[in-house]
């Protein structure tokens, strides 16, 4: 039942370079290439497509963060690494749902230890959720201003025009207020 991965699956080197360069094409090929592997694993171990999507995306995020942090050594095949990570994540989820985690049907021969990376990822995930919750509480228009400035890298001038502020100083003051509130929300939790 090993579905042949399509030939467009990028090589491990390509993936590492693609991640560092932020290549969208490599991401798409990577995503499509290994999804069936994880889907099969989840489907055969008490999960559905949505679970597979969540777990797989978390797995890819782990790979991205690892590559970006410069810690990714090609000591194992990327496929094996990704499989191991997704497997670990799914087993944790199963354990949280207090479903049985014994008798796991595996579809890859090699499973490597990834606990450290998973822990690191969980820490990051907590921060992500904190930020998400904080932004949610922040409300509009602050949320958009902050996102535009800090994430989408818009200039104060652009924001000023977008939100119809009379001058950039007003916009800056507004942004400052928003940021202070967001910080408060973020560090509170």
């Amino acid at each position, binding site marked *: 039942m090993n579905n042949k991965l399509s030939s467009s699956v990028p090589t491990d080197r390509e993936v590492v370079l693609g991640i560092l360069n932020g290549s969208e094409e490599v991401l*798409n090929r990577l*995503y*499509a290439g290994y999804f069936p592997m994880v889907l099969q694993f989840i*489907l055969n171990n008490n999960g559905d497509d949505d679970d597979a999507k969540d777990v797989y995306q978390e797995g890819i995020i782990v790979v991205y963060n690892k590559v970006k942090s410069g810690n990714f050594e090609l000591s194992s095949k990327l496929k094996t690494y990704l499989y191991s990570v997704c497997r670990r994540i799914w087993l944790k989820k199963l354990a949280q749902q207090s479903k049985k985690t014994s008798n796991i*049907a595996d579809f890859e021969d090699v499973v490597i230890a990834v606990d450290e990376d998973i822990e690191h990822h969980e820490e990051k995930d907590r921060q*992500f959720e904190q930020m*998400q919750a904080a932004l949610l509480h922040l409300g509009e228009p602050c949320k958009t201003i902050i996102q535009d400035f800090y994430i989408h890298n818009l200039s104060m001038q652009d924001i000023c025009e977008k939100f119809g502020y009379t001058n950039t100083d007003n916009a800056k003051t507004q942004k*400052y207020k928003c940021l202070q509130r967001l910080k408060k929300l*973020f560090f509170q939790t």
Partner: protein
Amino acid sequence: MRNEIELEAIIEDYLNGKLTPAEMQAFEALRIKDPSIDHRVVAHKVFLESLKDYGQTVALKHRMDQAHASIDVEALSKALRPHPSFIVNMWRKNKATIGIAASFILLSFAMLYSINQNTQQIGNVELMRSELGKIKNSQSSLIRKINSSAAVATEPRNERPANYGGTGFALTSNGYLLTNLHVIEGAESITVVDNSGTPYKVRVIRTDSQYDLAILKITDDKFKGLSSLPYRLKSNTIGMGEEVYTLGFPKDDAVYGRGYVSSRTGYNGDTTQYQVSIPVNPGNSGGPLLDQRGNIIGVISAKQNQVDGATFAVKSKYIQEALNSIPNDSLNTKVAFSKRNNLQGLSKTKQIEKIKDYVFMIKVYK
């Protein structure tokens, strides 16, 4: 308020590395001087990094969602989902186990097959058995057969063309000898040679095709008679594992052979014979089989081809029976076996020393 905004902007610029070197120096001095500012810098750094990570993760998720949308998840899950059928699931999950089980089954089939082959070999032995039966029932034809192909060594026999040899042993001190019927059957002339090499003429007194036995009598004038027999005929059967030995003439000189009774029945369960594990060769036929105490327990008669250590010997009980069936009036003197056994307690060498005068080589001319 304005100062606060300015300070925040400076911190941000500082973290983003947008300050000029001079400003940078000044700000770092300020950081060291004022711990509260230092704290704000650190907090802002953590916050900005979190915000940046958040942004990146959101972007990545967005792109992955796009990639996900391009995959036909429905079809894939259909192909990869555990099959509703229990058997297919079993197969998928336990491929390795099933594979191992299958190879074991294959292996056992192979073994069964090879056992079958063995059974076929036993079948071959059966065939040989019938051939042996023929040997017993129609010795003359067999001799002719051996004649035509000297390589067939089923029967102990010398391979000199038209000149056969066997072994015989004395039944009485006055010259009665016992040998196998197949040794002397069809012979034109028979000569026996004693241990010292003296040949004597003999006459066939009695043949018993049922037990493949023949009784000869030395008729030669040179024959002066033997001293009393050292061995006696054992009347009851002996058990498996009993150590036995024989003396015979597979060559022109006597050859000693040692073995043990491996079965109480002979070829294919023939109850008139023992199966003995003992090395014998053509020419051993008719030789006495003795136990450790020097009792004659049988007569070496045949050897099974292709099977190691399967020699057959006619049980002594049937020797006695054959002797008894001889009508008294056909013999001048009753064939009587010695009742004493002089060999008991002697060492093997001593026993052989005594026996060898009573074992004869039989030469048959046709």
